[in-house]
Protein backbone atom coordinates (compact mmCIF):
# COMPACT_ATOMS: atom_id res chain seq x y z
CA UNK A 1 0.00 0.00 0.00
CA UNK A 2 1.56 3.27 -1.08
CA UNK A 3 0.74 6.47 0.72
CA UNK A 4 1.98 9.83 -0.38
CA UNK A 5 3.96 11.35 2.46
CA UNK A 6 3.63 14.96 1.42
CA UNK A 7 1.59 16.02 4.44
CA UNK A 8 4.07 14.44 6.87
CA UNK A 9 6.77 16.84 5.72
CA UNK A 10 4.90 20.00 6.52
CA UNK A 11 5.95 20.73 10.10
CA UNK A 12 9.66 20.31 9.39
CA UNK A 13 9.41 22.26 6.12
CA UNK A 14 7.82 25.13 7.96
CA UNK A 15 10.50 24.96 10.62
CA UNK A 16 13.18 25.05 7.91
CA UNK A 17 11.66 28.12 6.32
CA UNK A 18 11.28 29.86 9.67
CA UNK A 19 14.84 29.03 10.58
CA UNK A 20 16.11 30.43 7.28
CA UNK A 21 14.08 33.59 7.73
CA UNK A 22 15.42 33.91 11.24
CA UNK A 23 18.98 33.56 9.99
CA UNK A 24 18.44 36.14 7.30
CA UNK A 25 16.69 38.72 9.48
CA UNK A 26 18.53 37.93 12.66
CA UNK A 27 21.31 39.94 11.12
CA UNK A 28 20.43 43.62 11.58
CA UNK A 29 22.43 44.69 8.56
CA UNK A 30 20.43 42.40 6.26
CA UNK A 31 17.19 43.76 7.65
CA UNK A 32 18.50 47.28 7.09
CA UNK A 33 19.17 46.37 3.47
CA UNK A 34 15.69 45.04 3.03
CA UNK A 35 14.14 48.11 4.65
CA UNK A 36 16.05 50.44 2.32
CA UNK A 37 14.96 48.41 -0.70
CA UNK A 38 11.33 48.52 0.37
CA UNK A 39 11.59 52.29 0.85
CA UNK A 40 13.18 52.54 -2.59
CA UNK A 41 10.40 50.51 -4.15
CA UNK A 42 7.76 52.64 -2.50
CA UNK A 43 9.38 55.90 -3.58
CA UNK A 44 9.68 54.61 -7.11
CA UNK A 45 6.01 53.68 -7.23
CA UNK A 46 4.70 56.75 -5.44
CA UNK A 47 7.18 59.32 -6.77
CA UNK A 48 4.58 61.57 -8.43
CA UNK A 49 2.71 61.75 -5.13
CA UNK A 50 5.68 61.98 -2.77
CA UNK A 51 7.73 64.50 -4.71
CA UNK A 52 7.10 68.11 -3.67
CA UNK A 53 7.81 69.28 -7.21
CA UNK A 54 6.87 66.42 -9.58
CA UNK A 55 7.25 68.50 -12.76
CA UNK A 56 10.77 69.45 -11.82
CA UNK A 57 11.35 65.80 -11.05
CA UNK A 58 10.52 65.03 -14.64
CA UNK A 59 12.68 67.82 -15.99
CA UNK A 60 10.91 71.16 -15.87
CA UNK A 61 13.38 73.97 -15.22
CA UNK A 62 12.92 76.62 -12.61
CA UNK A 63 15.70 79.05 -13.37
CA UNK A 64 14.65 81.57 -10.73
CA UNK A 65 15.84 79.24 -8.03
CA UNK A 66 18.86 77.74 -9.68
CA UNK A 67 21.71 76.46 -7.51
CA UNK A 68 19.83 77.11 -4.28
CA UNK A 69 21.27 75.60 -1.12
CA UNK A 70 19.24 73.08 0.92
CA UNK A 71 16.38 74.87 2.66
CA UNK A 72 12.85 74.31 3.90
CA UNK A 73 11.46 74.73 0.39
CA UNK A 74 14.03 72.49 -1.17
CA UNK A 75 15.36 70.02 1.42
CA UNK A 76 18.21 68.85 -0.77
CA UNK A 77 18.74 72.05 -2.72
CA UNK A 78 18.25 72.73 -6.40
CA UNK A 79 20.41 72.01 -9.39
CA UNK A 80 21.82 74.21 -12.16
CA UNK A 81 18.38 74.50 -13.78
CA UNK A 82 16.63 75.19 -10.50
CA UNK A 83 15.04 71.77 -10.25
CA UNK A 84 14.39 70.35 -6.79
CA UNK A 85 16.99 67.67 -6.11
CA UNK A 86 14.77 65.70 -3.74
CA UNK A 87 12.05 65.33 -6.39
CA UNK A 88 14.64 64.43 -9.01
CA UNK A 89 16.07 61.74 -6.78
CA UNK A 90 12.61 60.25 -6.26
CA UNK A 91 11.98 60.15 -9.98
CA UNK A 92 15.48 58.83 -10.47
CA UNK A 93 14.51 55.88 -8.30
CA UNK A 94 11.76 55.12 -10.80
CA UNK A 95 14.12 55.20 -13.74
CA UNK A 96 16.78 53.14 -11.98
CA UNK A 97 14.43 50.42 -10.81
CA UNK A 98 12.53 50.14 -14.06
CA UNK A 99 15.76 50.05 -16.02
CA UNK A 100 17.29 47.45 -13.72
CA UNK A 101 14.24 45.20 -13.95
CA UNK A 102 14.36 45.52 -17.72
CA UNK A 103 18.01 44.47 -17.78
CA UNK A 104 17.35 41.54 -15.47
CA UNK A 105 14.52 40.41 -17.71
CA UNK A 106 16.67 40.50 -20.85
CA UNK A 107 19.51 38.75 -19.09
CA UNK A 108 17.27 36.01 -17.75
CA UNK A 109 15.42 35.54 -21.05
CA UNK A 110 18.70 35.11 -22.92
CA UNK A 111 20.86 33.44 -20.30
CA UNK A 112 18.50 30.94 -18.71
CA UNK A 113 17.30 29.09 -21.83
CA UNK A 114 20.88 28.93 -23.13
CA UNK A 115 22.01 27.43 -19.84
CA UNK A 116 19.10 25.01 -19.93
CA UNK A 117 19.99 23.85 -23.42
CA UNK A 118 23.70 23.65 -22.67
CA UNK A 119 23.17 21.69 -19.47
CA UNK A 120 20.55 19.32 -20.84
CA UNK A 121 22.06 18.43 -24.20
CA UNK A 122 25.67 18.47 -23.12
CA UNK A 123 28.36 17.51 -25.61
CA UNK A 124 29.12 19.81 -28.51
CA UNK A 125 26.15 22.11 -27.88
CA UNK A 126 27.29 22.59 -24.32
CA UNK A 127 30.89 23.26 -25.44
CA UNK A 128 29.78 25.79 -28.02
CA UNK A 129 27.48 27.72 -25.74
CA UNK A 130 29.86 27.74 -22.80
CA UNK A 131 32.87 28.78 -24.87
CA UNK A 132 30.85 31.66 -26.26
CA UNK A 133 29.76 32.60 -22.74
CA UNK A 134 33.34 32.43 -21.46
CA UNK A 135 34.47 34.62 -24.32
CA UNK A 136 32.07 37.33 -23.26
CA UNK A 137 33.00 36.87 -19.61
CA UNK A 138 36.62 37.48 -20.55
CA UNK A 139 35.78 41.13 -21.18
CA UNK A 140 35.64 43.54 -18.26
CA UNK A 141 31.90 44.02 -18.33
CA UNK A 142 31.43 47.76 -18.07
CA UNK A 143 34.12 48.27 -20.68
CA UNK A 144 32.25 46.11 -23.16
CA UNK A 145 29.07 47.99 -22.31
CA UNK A 146 30.81 51.32 -22.93
CA UNK A 147 32.12 50.08 -26.27
CA UNK A 148 28.66 48.86 -27.30
CA UNK A 149 26.93 52.09 -26.38
CA UNK A 150 29.66 54.11 -28.06
CA UNK A 151 29.01 52.15 -31.26
CA UNK A 152 25.23 52.24 -31.12
CA UNK A 153 24.83 55.80 -29.87
CA UNK A 154 23.92 57.07 -26.42
CA UNK A 155 20.40 56.37 -25.27
CA UNK A 156 18.79 54.62 -22.33
CA UNK A 157 17.70 51.66 -24.41
CA UNK A 158 21.15 51.18 -25.92
CA UNK A 159 22.68 51.43 -22.46
CA UNK A 160 20.35 48.76 -21.07
CA UNK A 161 21.02 46.53 -24.04
CA UNK A 162 24.74 47.14 -23.63
CA UNK A 163 24.67 46.20 -19.94
CA UNK A 164 22.74 43.00 -20.64
CA UNK A 165 25.27 41.66 -23.10
CA UNK A 166 28.16 41.11 -20.63
CA UNK A 167 25.74 39.95 -17.96
CA UNK A 168 23.77 37.02 -19.42
CA UNK A 169 26.68 34.51 -19.35
CA UNK A 170 26.57 34.46 -15.53
CA UNK A 171 23.00 33.18 -15.68
CA UNK A 172 23.83 30.66 -18.38
CA UNK A 173 26.55 29.26 -16.14
CA UNK A 174 24.33 29.22 -13.09
CA UNK A 175 21.46 27.58 -14.93
CA UNK A 176 23.72 25.04 -16.56
CA UNK A 177 25.19 23.85 -13.26
CA UNK A 178 21.69 23.57 -11.81
CA UNK A 179 20.48 21.57 -14.80
CA UNK A 180 23.42 19.21 -14.70
CA UNK A 181 22.71 18.30 -11.10
CA UNK A 182 18.99 17.89 -11.64
CA UNK A 183 18.89 16.03 -14.93
CA UNK A 184 20.19 12.80 -13.43
CA UNK A 185 17.45 12.68 -10.85
CA UNK A 186 14.81 9.98 -10.69
CA UNK A 187 11.84 12.02 -11.72
CA UNK A 188 13.54 13.17 -14.91
CA UNK A 189 14.55 9.65 -15.77
CA UNK A 190 10.99 8.50 -15.21
CA UNK A 191 9.64 11.21 -17.46
CA UNK A 192 12.08 10.20 -20.16
CA UNK A 193 11.04 6.56 -19.74
CA UNK A 194 7.37 7.41 -20.18
CA UNK A 195 8.28 9.17 -23.42
CA UNK A 196 7.91 12.82 -22.52
CA UNK A 197 9.51 14.95 -25.23
CA UNK A 198 12.88 16.56 -24.48
CA UNK A 199 11.63 20.13 -24.71
CA UNK A 200 8.74 19.38 -22.41
CA UNK A 201 11.12 17.84 -19.90
CA UNK A 202 13.38 20.86 -20.06
CA UNK A 203 10.80 23.56 -19.72
CA UNK A 204 8.08 21.84 -17.76
CA UNK A 205 10.10 19.72 -15.33
CA UNK A 206 13.67 20.95 -15.03
CA UNK A 207 13.22 24.69 -15.34
CA UNK A 208 10.77 25.21 -12.46
CA UNK A 209 13.10 23.40 -10.07
CA UNK A 210 16.07 25.57 -10.97
CA UNK A 211 14.37 28.89 -10.63
CA UNK A 212 15.06 29.80 -7.01
CA UNK A 213 18.85 30.32 -7.26
CA UNK A 214 18.22 32.33 -10.42
CA UNK A 215 15.74 34.55 -8.62
CA UNK A 216 18.12 35.01 -5.69
CA UNK A 217 21.00 35.87 -8.00
CA UNK A 218 18.86 38.30 -10.00
CA UNK A 219 17.88 40.11 -6.83
CA UNK A 220 21.50 40.33 -5.74
CA UNK A 221 22.58 41.62 -9.14
CA UNK A 222 20.03 44.44 -9.12
CA UNK A 223 22.35 46.61 -7.07
CA UNK A 224 25.25 46.27 -9.47
CA UNK A 225 23.02 46.75 -12.48
CA UNK A 226 21.78 50.01 -11.00
CA UNK A 227 25.41 51.02 -10.44
CA UNK A 228 26.26 50.14 -14.04
CA UNK A 229 23.33 52.20 -15.35
CA UNK A 230 24.40 55.13 -13.18
CA UNK A 231 28.00 54.81 -14.33
CA UNK A 232 27.00 54.89 -17.97
CA UNK A 233 24.73 57.82 -17.18
CA UNK A 234 27.65 59.62 -15.58
CA UNK A 235 29.64 59.24 -18.80
CA UNK A 236 26.71 60.56 -20.78
CA UNK A 237 26.15 57.19 -22.41
CA UNK A 238 22.83 56.27 -20.88
CA UNK A 239 19.74 58.18 -19.96
CA UNK A 240 19.72 61.51 -21.70
CA UNK A 241 18.75 64.76 -20.00
CA UNK A 242 16.27 66.04 -18.86
CA UNK A 243 15.45 62.61 -17.40
CA UNK A 244 16.41 62.37 -13.73
CA UNK A 245 18.96 59.57 -13.82
CA UNK A 246 21.16 59.56 -10.71
CA UNK A 247 24.37 59.14 -12.68
CA UNK A 248 23.50 62.02 -14.99
CA UNK A 249 22.73 64.17 -11.94
CA UNK A 250 26.17 63.50 -10.44
CA UNK A 251 27.77 64.41 -13.74
CA UNK A 252 25.72 67.60 -14.08
CA UNK A 253 26.67 68.59 -10.56
CA UNK A 254 30.37 68.16 -11.19
CA UNK A 255 30.80 71.56 -12.78
CA UNK A 256 29.46 73.28 -9.66
CA UNK A 257 30.78 70.82 -7.15
CA UNK A 258 33.15 72.98 -5.18
CA UNK A 259 30.49 75.53 -4.26
CA UNK A 260 27.16 73.81 -4.82
CA UNK A 261 28.16 70.42 -3.43
CA UNK A 262 24.61 69.20 -2.83
CA UNK A 263 23.77 68.33 -6.44
CA UNK A 264 26.33 65.57 -6.86
CA UNK A 265 26.51 64.57 -3.21
CA UNK A 266 22.87 63.65 -2.73
CA UNK A 267 22.39 61.96 -6.09
CA UNK A 268 25.56 59.96 -5.56
CA UNK A 269 24.40 59.08 -2.06
CA UNK A 270 21.19 57.68 -3.58
CA UNK A 271 23.24 55.37 -5.80
CA UNK A 272 25.43 54.34 -2.90
CA UNK A 273 22.57 53.56 -0.53
CA UNK A 274 20.73 51.55 -3.15
CA UNK A 275 23.71 49.41 -4.06
CA UNK A 276 24.60 49.03 -0.39
CA UNK A 277 21.08 47.86 0.43
CA UNK A 278 21.12 45.17 -2.26
CA UNK A 279 24.58 44.06 -1.19
CA UNK A 280 23.59 43.81 2.47
CA UNK A 281 20.48 41.85 1.59
CA UNK A 282 22.45 39.68 -0.78
CA UNK A 283 25.12 38.92 1.78
CA UNK A 284 22.48 38.01 4.31
CA UNK A 285 20.68 35.65 1.95
CA UNK A 286 23.93 34.08 0.83
CA UNK A 287 25.00 33.47 4.41
CA UNK A 288 21.64 32.00 5.27
CA UNK A 289 21.87 29.63 2.32
CA UNK A 290 25.45 28.56 2.74
CA UNK A 291 25.37 25.33 4.78
CA UNK A 292 28.80 25.90 6.29
CA UNK A 293 27.87 29.28 7.70
CA UNK A 294 24.46 28.07 8.82
CA UNK A 295 26.14 25.36 10.85
CA UNK A 296 28.08 28.00 12.70
CA UNK A 297 25.01 30.00 13.57
CA UNK A 298 22.64 27.23 14.44
CA UNK A 299 22.19 26.46 18.09
CA UNK A 300 22.73 22.74 18.48
Amino acid sequence: MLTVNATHNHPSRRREVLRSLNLVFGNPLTTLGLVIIVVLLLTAIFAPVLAPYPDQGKGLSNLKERLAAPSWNHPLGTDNLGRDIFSRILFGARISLQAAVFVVLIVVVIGVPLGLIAGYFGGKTDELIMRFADMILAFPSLLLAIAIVASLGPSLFNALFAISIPWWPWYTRLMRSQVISIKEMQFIESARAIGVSRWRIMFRHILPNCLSPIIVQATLDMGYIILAIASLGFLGLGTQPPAADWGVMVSEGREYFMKQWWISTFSGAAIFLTVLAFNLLGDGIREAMDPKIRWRFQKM
Partner: protein
Amino acid sequence: MLRFILKRFFWLFFVLLGLCAITFVLSRVVPGDPAAVYLGPRAKAEQLAEVRVKLGLDKPLHVQFLYYLEDLLRGDFGESLRTHRPVMVGIWEHLPASLELMFSAMLMATLIGIPLGVISAKKENTLTDHFSRFFAVASTSLPSFWLAMLFQILFFKWLGLFPIGGRMDTVVSLVNPIEKITGFYVLDALLSGNWTALKNVLHHLFLPAVTLASYSTGVITRMTRSTMLEVLREDYITTARSIGVGEGEILFVQGLRNALAPTLTAAGLGFAYMLIGTVFIELIFFWPGIGTYVTNAILLNDYPVIMGVTLLMATFYVVVNLIVDILIALVDPRIRFE
Protein backbone atom coordinates in the same frame (compact mmCIF):
# COMPACT_ATOMS: atom_id res chain seq x y z
CA MET B 1 52.30 21.88 -14.57
CA LEU B 2 53.52 22.53 -18.07
CA ARG B 3 50.43 20.92 -19.57
CA PHE B 4 48.30 23.18 -17.41
CA ILE B 5 50.09 26.28 -18.66
CA LEU B 6 49.98 25.12 -22.26
CA LYS B 7 46.26 24.43 -22.03
CA ARG B 8 45.75 27.88 -20.61
CA PHE B 9 47.77 29.55 -23.35
CA PHE B 10 45.78 27.72 -25.98
CA TRP B 11 42.60 28.97 -24.40
CA LEU B 12 44.09 32.47 -24.22
CA PHE B 13 44.62 32.45 -27.97
CA PHE B 14 40.99 31.62 -28.63
CA VAL B 15 39.75 34.20 -26.18
CA LEU B 16 41.89 36.90 -27.81
CA LEU B 17 40.54 35.88 -31.20
CA GLY B 18 37.04 36.19 -29.84
CA LEU B 19 37.80 39.61 -28.35
CA CYS B 20 39.00 40.82 -31.74
CA ALA B 21 35.84 39.47 -33.34
CA ILE B 22 33.70 41.34 -30.85
CA THR B 23 35.50 44.66 -31.32
CA PHE B 24 35.44 44.13 -35.08
CA VAL B 25 31.68 43.61 -35.05
CA LEU B 26 31.24 46.65 -32.83
CA SER B 27 33.30 48.88 -35.07
CA ARG B 28 31.29 47.80 -38.10
CA VAL B 29 28.00 48.30 -36.31
CA VAL B 30 28.74 52.00 -36.01
CA PRO B 31 25.73 53.85 -37.36
CA GLY B 32 26.54 55.59 -40.55
CA ASP B 33 29.14 54.93 -43.13
CA PRO B 34 32.64 54.43 -41.69
CA ALA B 35 34.01 56.11 -44.79
CA ALA B 36 31.94 59.21 -44.09
CA VAL B 37 33.08 59.18 -40.49
CA TYR B 38 36.67 58.93 -41.66
CA LEU B 39 36.44 61.77 -44.17
CA GLY B 40 34.15 64.15 -42.34
CA PRO B 41 30.85 65.77 -43.26
CA ARG B 42 31.89 67.53 -46.47
CA ALA B 43 33.16 64.53 -48.37
CA LYS B 44 32.20 64.12 -52.02
CA ALA B 45 30.77 60.92 -53.47
CA GLU B 46 33.94 59.94 -55.39
CA GLN B 47 36.08 60.53 -52.32
CA LEU B 48 33.77 58.33 -50.28
CA ALA B 49 33.99 55.56 -52.89
CA GLU B 50 37.78 55.89 -52.93
CA VAL B 51 38.04 55.69 -49.16
CA ARG B 52 35.71 52.74 -49.08
CA VAL B 53 38.08 50.80 -51.27
CA LYS B 54 41.06 52.05 -49.28
CA LEU B 55 39.54 50.94 -45.98
CA GLY B 56 38.57 47.64 -47.57
CA LEU B 57 34.89 48.22 -46.89
CA ASP B 58 33.86 46.82 -50.27
CA LYS B 59 35.19 43.36 -49.46
CA PRO B 60 33.09 40.66 -47.78
CA LEU B 61 33.01 40.73 -43.99
CA HIS B 62 35.25 37.76 -43.31
CA VAL B 63 37.92 39.22 -45.57
CA GLN B 64 37.63 42.51 -43.72
CA PHE B 65 38.06 40.61 -40.48
CA LEU B 66 41.28 39.03 -41.75
CA TYR B 67 42.61 42.46 -42.72
CA TYR B 68 41.60 43.68 -39.28
CA LEU B 69 43.52 40.86 -37.59
CA GLU B 70 46.51 41.46 -39.81
CA ASP B 71 46.54 45.13 -38.81
CA LEU B 72 46.22 44.27 -35.14
CA LEU B 73 49.16 41.91 -35.28
CA ARG B 74 51.23 44.69 -36.76
CA GLY B 75 50.14 46.91 -33.91
CA ASP B 76 47.96 49.04 -36.12
CA PHE B 77 44.84 49.89 -34.18
CA GLY B 78 43.81 52.50 -36.67
CA GLU B 79 44.04 56.26 -36.46
CA SER B 80 42.29 58.54 -34.06
CA LEU B 81 39.54 60.37 -35.90
CA ARG B 82 40.31 63.45 -33.86
CA THR B 83 44.08 63.71 -34.09
CA HIS B 84 44.74 61.41 -37.06
CA ARG B 85 47.64 59.96 -35.09
CA PRO B 86 47.87 56.20 -34.71
CA VAL B 87 45.83 54.90 -31.81
CA MET B 88 48.79 52.82 -30.72
CA VAL B 89 50.87 55.94 -30.22
CA GLY B 90 48.13 57.60 -28.20
CA ILE B 91 47.79 54.51 -26.04
CA TRP B 92 51.53 54.27 -25.56
CA GLU B 93 51.71 57.87 -24.40
CA HIS B 94 48.86 57.55 -21.92
CA LEU B 95 49.54 54.07 -20.61
CA PRO B 96 52.31 54.71 -18.04
CA ALA B 97 50.17 57.15 -16.08
CA SER B 98 47.37 54.58 -15.77
CA LEU B 99 49.69 51.71 -14.95
CA GLU B 100 51.32 53.75 -12.21
CA LEU B 101 47.90 54.48 -10.75
CA MET B 102 46.71 50.88 -10.98
CA PHE B 103 49.85 49.39 -9.46
CA SER B 104 49.73 51.81 -6.55
CA ALA B 105 46.06 51.07 -6.02
CA MET B 106 46.64 47.30 -6.19
CA LEU B 107 49.46 47.60 -3.70
CA MET B 108 47.28 49.57 -1.30
CA ALA B 109 44.36 47.20 -1.71
CA THR B 110 46.40 44.11 -0.88
CA LEU B 111 48.39 45.75 1.92
CA ILE B 112 45.20 46.91 3.61
CA GLY B 113 42.75 44.22 2.53
CA ILE B 114 44.64 41.07 3.45
CA PRO B 115 45.59 42.01 7.03
CA LEU B 116 42.13 43.45 7.59
CA GLY B 117 40.54 40.21 6.38
CA VAL B 118 42.81 38.09 8.55
CA ILE B 119 42.20 40.16 11.70
CA SER B 120 38.50 40.24 10.98
CA ALA B 121 38.43 36.46 10.72
CA LYS B 122 40.42 36.07 13.91
CA LYS B 123 38.11 38.37 15.83
CA GLU B 124 34.94 36.92 14.38
CA ASN B 125 31.69 38.42 15.63
CA THR B 126 33.39 41.13 17.67
CA LEU B 127 32.90 44.83 17.08
CA THR B 128 36.10 44.95 15.02
CA ASP B 129 34.73 42.24 12.79
CA HIS B 130 31.39 43.96 12.30
CA PHE B 131 33.05 47.26 11.51
CA SER B 132 35.42 45.79 8.97
CA ARG B 133 32.66 43.75 7.36
CA PHE B 134 30.49 46.80 7.01
CA PHE B 135 33.44 48.75 5.67
CA ALA B 136 34.10 45.99 3.12
CA VAL B 137 30.48 45.88 1.94
CA ALA B 138 30.30 49.66 1.81
CA SER B 139 33.46 49.97 -0.26
CA THR B 140 32.13 47.56 -2.85
CA SER B 141 28.92 49.58 -3.06
CA LEU B 142 30.45 53.01 -3.58
CA PRO B 143 30.21 54.57 -7.04
CA SER B 144 33.87 55.34 -7.72
CA PHE B 145 33.18 58.67 -9.36
CA TRP B 146 31.16 59.81 -6.34
CA LEU B 147 33.83 58.72 -3.88
CA ALA B 148 36.44 60.53 -5.95
CA MET B 149 34.44 63.75 -5.85
CA LEU B 150 33.84 63.43 -2.10
CA PHE B 151 37.55 62.91 -1.50
CA GLN B 152 38.32 65.92 -3.64
CA ILE B 153 36.03 68.24 -1.75
CA LEU B 154 37.07 66.84 1.63
CA PHE B 155 40.83 66.71 1.19
CA PHE B 156 41.34 69.54 -1.25
CA LYS B 157 38.66 72.13 -0.61
CA TRP B 158 37.93 71.71 3.09
CA LEU B 159 41.17 70.33 4.55
CA GLY B 160 43.63 71.54 1.94
CA LEU B 161 45.75 68.42 2.42
CA PHE B 162 45.98 67.10 -1.12
CA PRO B 163 45.94 68.60 -4.61
CA ILE B 164 42.80 68.56 -6.72
CA GLY B 165 44.35 66.42 -9.44
CA GLY B 166 47.00 66.01 -12.08
CA ARG B 167 50.21 64.01 -11.77
CA MET B 168 52.44 66.87 -10.68
CA ASP B 169 52.39 70.56 -9.86
CA THR B 170 53.21 72.60 -12.95
CA VAL B 171 55.71 74.64 -10.93
CA VAL B 172 57.59 71.56 -9.81
CA SER B 173 57.59 70.09 -13.31
CA LEU B 174 59.21 73.28 -14.61
CA VAL B 175 61.71 73.80 -11.80
CA ASN B 176 62.54 70.13 -11.07
CA PRO B 177 61.55 68.28 -14.22
CA ILE B 178 61.68 64.51 -14.07
CA GLU B 179 64.08 62.86 -16.45
CA LYS B 180 62.06 60.51 -18.63
CA ILE B 181 63.39 56.98 -18.22
CA THR B 182 60.41 54.66 -17.92
CA GLY B 183 57.48 57.05 -18.12
CA PHE B 184 56.51 56.16 -14.54
CA TYR B 185 57.01 59.37 -12.62
CA VAL B 186 57.61 57.69 -9.28
CA LEU B 187 60.20 55.34 -10.68
CA ASP B 188 61.91 57.99 -12.77
CA ALA B 189 62.10 60.43 -9.90
CA LEU B 190 63.57 57.72 -7.67
CA LEU B 191 66.09 56.63 -10.27
CA SER B 192 67.27 60.15 -10.95
CA GLY B 193 67.35 61.12 -7.29
CA ASN B 194 64.86 63.95 -7.84
CA TRP B 195 63.43 64.08 -4.31
CA THR B 196 61.38 67.24 -4.71
CA ALA B 197 59.63 65.82 -7.71
CA LEU B 198 59.21 62.44 -5.99
CA LYS B 199 57.49 64.01 -3.01
CA ASN B 200 55.26 66.02 -5.29
CA VAL B 201 54.35 63.07 -7.48
CA LEU B 202 53.52 60.86 -4.49
CA HIS B 203 51.44 63.68 -3.07
CA HIS B 204 49.41 63.77 -6.27
CA LEU B 205 49.23 59.99 -6.57
CA PHE B 206 47.79 59.34 -3.14
CA LEU B 207 44.17 60.39 -3.48
CA PRO B 208 43.45 58.82 -6.89
CA ALA B 209 45.18 55.61 -5.82
CA VAL B 210 43.17 55.38 -2.59
CA THR B 211 39.92 55.97 -4.47
CA LEU B 212 40.79 53.36 -7.07
CA ALA B 213 41.83 50.93 -4.35
CA SER B 214 38.61 51.19 -2.37
CA TYR B 215 36.53 48.63 -4.26
CA SER B 216 39.33 46.09 -4.46
CA THR B 217 40.13 46.53 -0.76
CA GLY B 218 36.56 45.60 0.03
CA VAL B 219 36.60 42.55 -2.23
CA ILE B 220 39.95 41.32 -0.92
CA THR B 221 38.94 41.87 2.72
CA ARG B 222 35.74 39.88 2.30
CA MET B 223 37.38 37.03 0.44
CA THR B 224 40.31 36.80 2.84
CA ARG B 225 37.99 36.87 5.81
CA SER B 226 35.69 34.11 4.59
CA THR B 227 38.51 31.81 3.53
CA MET B 228 40.45 32.45 6.73
CA LEU B 229 37.34 31.55 8.71
CA GLU B 230 37.32 28.16 7.00
CA VAL B 231 41.04 27.67 7.37
CA LEU B 232 41.16 28.62 11.05
CA ARG B 233 38.77 25.80 11.86
CA GLU B 234 41.02 23.17 10.37
CA ASP B 235 42.67 20.63 12.62
CA TYR B 236 46.21 21.54 11.74
CA ILE B 237 45.66 25.04 13.07
CA THR B 238 44.53 23.64 16.42
CA THR B 239 47.53 21.35 16.40
CA ALA B 240 49.90 24.22 15.67
CA ARG B 241 48.41 26.22 18.51
CA SER B 242 48.72 23.34 20.94
CA ILE B 243 52.36 22.86 20.01
CA GLY B 244 52.93 26.46 20.93
CA VAL B 245 53.28 28.17 17.58
CA GLY B 246 52.78 31.91 18.02
CA GLU B 247 49.43 33.39 17.01
CA GLY B 248 51.04 35.76 14.54
CA GLU B 249 52.72 32.92 12.69
CA ILE B 250 49.54 30.87 12.71
CA LEU B 251 47.53 33.66 11.22
CA PHE B 252 49.89 35.03 8.67
CA VAL B 253 51.99 32.05 7.71
CA GLN B 254 50.11 28.80 8.24
CA GLY B 255 46.62 30.14 7.77
CA LEU B 256 47.18 32.66 5.03
CA ARG B 257 49.09 30.28 2.79
CA ASN B 258 45.98 28.18 2.39
CA ALA B 259 43.71 31.15 2.08
CA LEU B 260 45.86 32.61 -0.64
CA ALA B 261 44.21 31.00 -3.66
CA PRO B 262 40.76 32.59 -3.31
CA THR B 263 42.43 35.83 -2.25
CA LEU B 264 44.42 35.87 -5.46
CA THR B 265 41.20 35.32 -7.39
CA ALA B 266 39.66 38.23 -5.53
CA ALA B 267 42.69 40.33 -6.38
CA GLY B 268 42.20 39.41 -10.03
CA LEU B 269 38.57 40.48 -9.82
CA GLY B 270 39.64 43.69 -8.15
CA PHE B 271 42.11 44.31 -10.93
CA ALA B 272 39.36 43.97 -13.54
CA TYR B 273 37.43 46.55 -11.66
CA MET B 274 40.42 48.84 -11.65
CA LEU B 275 40.58 48.79 -15.43
CA ILE B 276 37.07 50.16 -15.51
CA GLY B 277 37.43 52.30 -12.40
CA THR B 278 40.44 54.06 -13.85
CA VAL B 279 38.19 55.59 -16.52
CA PHE B 280 36.17 57.40 -13.88
CA ILE B 281 38.97 58.18 -11.45
CA GLU B 282 41.18 59.68 -14.15
CA LEU B 283 38.30 61.83 -15.31
CA ILE B 284 37.70 63.29 -11.86
CA PHE B 285 41.34 63.72 -10.86
CA PHE B 286 42.49 65.04 -14.25
CA TRP B 287 44.92 62.15 -14.53
CA PRO B 288 46.36 61.97 -18.08
CA GLY B 289 46.04 58.22 -18.52
CA ILE B 290 44.17 55.77 -20.72
CA GLY B 291 40.91 56.60 -18.96
CA THR B 292 41.13 60.24 -19.99
CA TYR B 293 42.14 59.18 -23.48
CA VAL B 294 39.09 56.99 -23.90
CA THR B 295 36.65 59.39 -22.22
CA ASN B 296 37.64 62.16 -24.63
CA ALA B 297 37.19 59.68 -27.44
CA ILE B 298 33.72 58.80 -26.19
CA LEU B 299 32.69 62.45 -26.11
CA LEU B 300 33.85 62.92 -29.71
CA ASN B 301 32.73 59.57 -31.10
CA ASP B 302 36.29 58.65 -31.90
CA TYR B 303 35.55 54.98 -32.58
CA PRO B 304 39.04 53.70 -33.46
CA VAL B 305 40.34 54.95 -30.12
CA ILE B 306 37.42 53.46 -28.20
CA MET B 307 37.79 50.09 -29.89
CA GLY B 308 41.55 50.11 -29.59
CA VAL B 309 41.51 50.91 -25.89
CA THR B 310 38.73 48.38 -25.25
CA LEU B 311 40.66 45.65 -27.01
CA LEU B 312 43.83 46.56 -25.19
CA MET B 313 42.20 46.62 -21.77
CA ALA B 314 40.39 43.36 -22.43
CA THR B 315 43.63 41.71 -23.52
CA PHE B 316 45.35 43.05 -20.44
CA TYR B 317 42.58 41.68 -18.25
CA VAL B 318 42.69 38.25 -19.88
CA VAL B 319 46.47 38.06 -19.57
CA VAL B 320 46.39 39.13 -15.92
CA ASN B 321 43.76 36.50 -15.19
CA LEU B 322 45.94 33.90 -16.84
CA ILE B 323 48.88 34.95 -14.67
CA VAL B 324 46.67 34.80 -11.58
CA ASP B 325 45.48 31.31 -12.56
CA ILE B 326 49.05 30.14 -13.01
CA LEU B 327 50.07 31.69 -9.68
CA ILE B 328 47.18 29.97 -7.95
CA ALA B 329 48.15 26.66 -9.53
CA LEU B 330 51.69 27.19 -8.29
CA VAL B 331 50.51 27.97 -4.78
CA ASP B 332 47.76 25.35 -4.55
CA PRO B 333 48.68 21.99 -6.12
CA ARG B 334 45.08 20.80 -5.95
CA ILE B 335 44.11 23.15 -8.76
CA ARG B 336 46.68 21.74 -11.14
CA PHE B 337 45.11 18.35 -11.22
CA GLU B 338 41.53 19.36 -11.78
